[in-house]
């Protein structure tokens, strides 16, 4: 395979970060690159290149109009660093969609091998789509998926082959009008995955979508749409990576999930972008009666990340759990959180957020629990804890609980703390180095979240934490 040694996922993290594994960005052949002002002609060109049906072209143009009208959110920290006119909004690498690793061009295959994707796919996944810059370059689906009637396609292909199904849900869970960057996404989306699970079908092994940004000053706008029929279930994993770049790149992705009655959806993201990615994530699910949606968010990399996975509990007895770990080590910002909207009786939500800041980092928890009138007997609990590892780092906790239903109960707890000198001294006296002691304390801090994760995801996250914090020097 191109003479490159295959790495396991663990070796990725044991390289002390994605930057060391992937190295610097390299030039590669591009078939199409569209950049410039965000105008109608740019959006029309993207639609033309993709050979889209007219309804999708019109959807994009309506979103573009909204983008012009909506203001830049003033509460967002750091957004002034993005110059939208320097970004390339569509980059198609010179590669066609293939269904085997061997068919990929060597320069793409090299990156994926370093990331350990072929092995992960062979061992643990029932399907995988890989997006490189703006296009899906690889789609693999095991027989299990096909035999059960599960649809796993690149989003563009789904738009062409299943227009009625896609139209029913696309942009309905997370509309373009929500905010300016959602509108931008809907106007420029490219790449991503469409998953449809028929009623009653349980997909045993997870499906993964992997997103890779290969160039600087590039915008990635992948769209993932997951629809799970009544009684169905699926676990979906999202991975993200990019090599080191001199300038920044911009990610404005979207995930829409529709969980029908009694469906179960588990959505995990381990985001370890390199430090020059500005990362917007728009994630939302609608849960019908008795459905369950679980979000797991591991925000480890990037220069700035904004992500607030949300669930609208539309059906009676629907429930959601939202677990997140955010680490800002260095002069980076992790602005994360979660939202739960209770719109039906007997709904339940739990949000657990653990964030760690060190070496001048800033972590922000931004959350909302909204209980609408009529959501009788709904219950919600939020726990958000921060660990600030030194005097230069910061933590903001900004929750909002809005209850319009008198029979609901909503509670929230939060704490901000720092490493205890006594704990460090005790562990030092047991033979641990200062770095090892800090890593152990941090792992203990995020135990609540680790306990709720699939074993393989928990072990990756633990390993990343161990490596990130075992390098820290002494405080003060």
């Amino acid at each position: 395979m191109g003479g490159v040694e295959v790495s396991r996922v663990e070796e990725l993290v044991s390289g002390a970060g994605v930057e060391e594994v992937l190295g610097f960005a390299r030039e590669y052949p591009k078939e199409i690159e569209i950049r410039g002002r965000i105008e109608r002609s740019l959006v029309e060109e993207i639609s033309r290149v993709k050979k889209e049906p007219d309804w999708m072209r019109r959807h994009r143009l309506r979103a573009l109009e909204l983008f012009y009208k909506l203001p830049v959110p003033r509460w967002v920290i750091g957004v002034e660093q993005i110059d939208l006119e320097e970004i390339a909004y569509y980059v198609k690498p010179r590669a066609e969609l293939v269904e085997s690793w061997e068919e990929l061009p060597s320069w793409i295959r090299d990156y994926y091998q370093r990331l350990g994707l072929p092995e992960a796919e062979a061992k643990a996944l029932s399907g995988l789509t890989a997006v490189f810059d703006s296009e899906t370059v690889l789609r693999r689906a095991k027989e299990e998926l096909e035999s059960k009637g599960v649809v796993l396609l690149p989003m563009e292909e789904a738009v062409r082959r299943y227009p009625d199904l896609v139209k029913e849900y696309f942009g309905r869970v997370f509309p373009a009008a929500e905010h300016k960057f959602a509108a931008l996404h809907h106007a420029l989306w490219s790449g991503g995955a469409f998953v449809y699970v028929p009623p009653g079908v349980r997909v045993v092994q997870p499906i993964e979508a992997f997103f890779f940004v290969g160039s600087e000053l590039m915008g990635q706008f992948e769209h993932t749409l997951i629809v799970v029929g009544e009684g169905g279930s699926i676990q979906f994993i999202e991975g993200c990576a990019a090599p080191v770049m001199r300038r920044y790149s911009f990610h404005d992705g979207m995930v829409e999930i529709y969980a029908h009655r009694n469906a179960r959806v588990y959505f995990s993201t381990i985001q370890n972008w390199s430090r020059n990615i500005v990362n917007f994530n728009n994630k939302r699910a609608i849960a019908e009666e008795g459905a369950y949606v679980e979000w797991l968010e591991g925000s480890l990399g990037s220069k700035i990340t904004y992500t607030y996975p949300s669930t609208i509990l539309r059906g009676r007895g629907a429930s959601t759990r939202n677990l997140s770990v955010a680490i800002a080590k260095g002069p980076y910002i992790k602005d994360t959180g979660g939202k739960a909207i209770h719109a039906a009786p007997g709904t339940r939500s739990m949000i657990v957020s653990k964030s760690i800041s060190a070496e001048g980092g800033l972590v922000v928890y931004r959350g909302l629990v909204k209980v609408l009138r009529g959501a009788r007997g709904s219950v919600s609990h939020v726990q958000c804890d921060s660990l600030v590892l030194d005097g230069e780092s910061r933590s903001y906790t900004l929750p909002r609980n809005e209850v319009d239903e008198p029979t609901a109960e909503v509670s929230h707890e939060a704490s901000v703390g720092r490493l205890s000198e006594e704990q460090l001294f005790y562990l030092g006296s047991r033979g641990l180095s200062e770095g090892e002691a800090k890593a152990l304390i941090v792992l203990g801090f995020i135990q609540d979240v680790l306990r709720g994760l699939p074993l393989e995801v928990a072990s990756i996250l633990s390993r990343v934490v161990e490596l990130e914090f075992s390098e820290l020097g002494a405080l003060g």
Partner: protein
Amino acid sequence: MAQRALLDEVPWQPYADSPTTKYYTDWGAFERLLSSSWDVVFEEPRGSYDYVAGCGGGSGGPGGLLGERESRLAVAHYRFLRGVDRVAVGGGVVRVGFCLPRGSGWAAQHLVVEARGSSGVILDIDRRGGAGGSVVVEVLVEPGARLEVFARVRGGSAPLAVVLRRRLGRGSVVSSAVAAVGGGGVLRVEDASLLAGEASRFTGVGAALATRGSRVDYVVDVVHAAPDAYSRPVVRGYALGDGLVVARGVVRVLASGRGADTVFEAEAVMLGGEARAYAAPMMEIETGDVRVATHRAAQYRVPEDVLFYLGSRGLSEEEAVALVVRENLLAAVEGMELVGGAGRRALLEVLGEVLGPAVL
């Protein structure tokens, strides 16, 4: 003219309060008040007070804790203000009543309290039947001083903003209890404390009652700007009938506030069939060098088991609810030696007006 121009430039607040509720305070009501013609007369309050403030006179200057361009609210306040009252307290308890402004238009009142030694201040702000507008009370606490503050605020049908600003000097200790009752309109209370001196201490309970038709937004703001400061702000909201109560605020620990010890609680109880309660206790910690920094929030109705127990003792549901709210609120003045007695009486009086004689 300059202030009129400023009114057009400065927003009520820089951005929305949440993705689903643009503003917790109904600024539209204040905007309409700004547009109405000004015709206000000030009436002496009933009751016995050591000092009467906000009667349209007052020759003192502001205390410097509310910036003129801070917000549209501040601009409006200074535009319509006719005079600043100042009172110094240095031992004993001072009861301050505010004149009742009648008529139409924005009525602004402003009091500066300078506290030294060990003293108490009782503030009585009653705008029932009166004009809307703003009341600003600035409390400057000298280093080493100990101050107890009790404030009773009764809103009317016209929108009212009450802004309490405290500045604590080195080693000073402030205990505060504020009871704010909506009167059918919009009531916004800003309860802010700046811990500017090393080892300053603030404990405060804000109780907000949103009666039928009222919207009460109680906003706490505590800033740890000096080392080793201590704060325990608590906001308790009660929503009756179809009232909306918001219990929220921000505790900020600046980089200079190392060694901070702060616990922020926001609680809201829904007592009516259409009541609404919002809670948003926020923290912004600019340094990892904190001793304690936690916050918690809860929204609920009076637990069924409590109602059952009290019902088994012969109380109706209204009586049981009144009892629970009363005991909860009276706890706010526990431990206040100087103002606790008067505070308790004032609280019972206002609870009796809102919840009926059962509470007495």
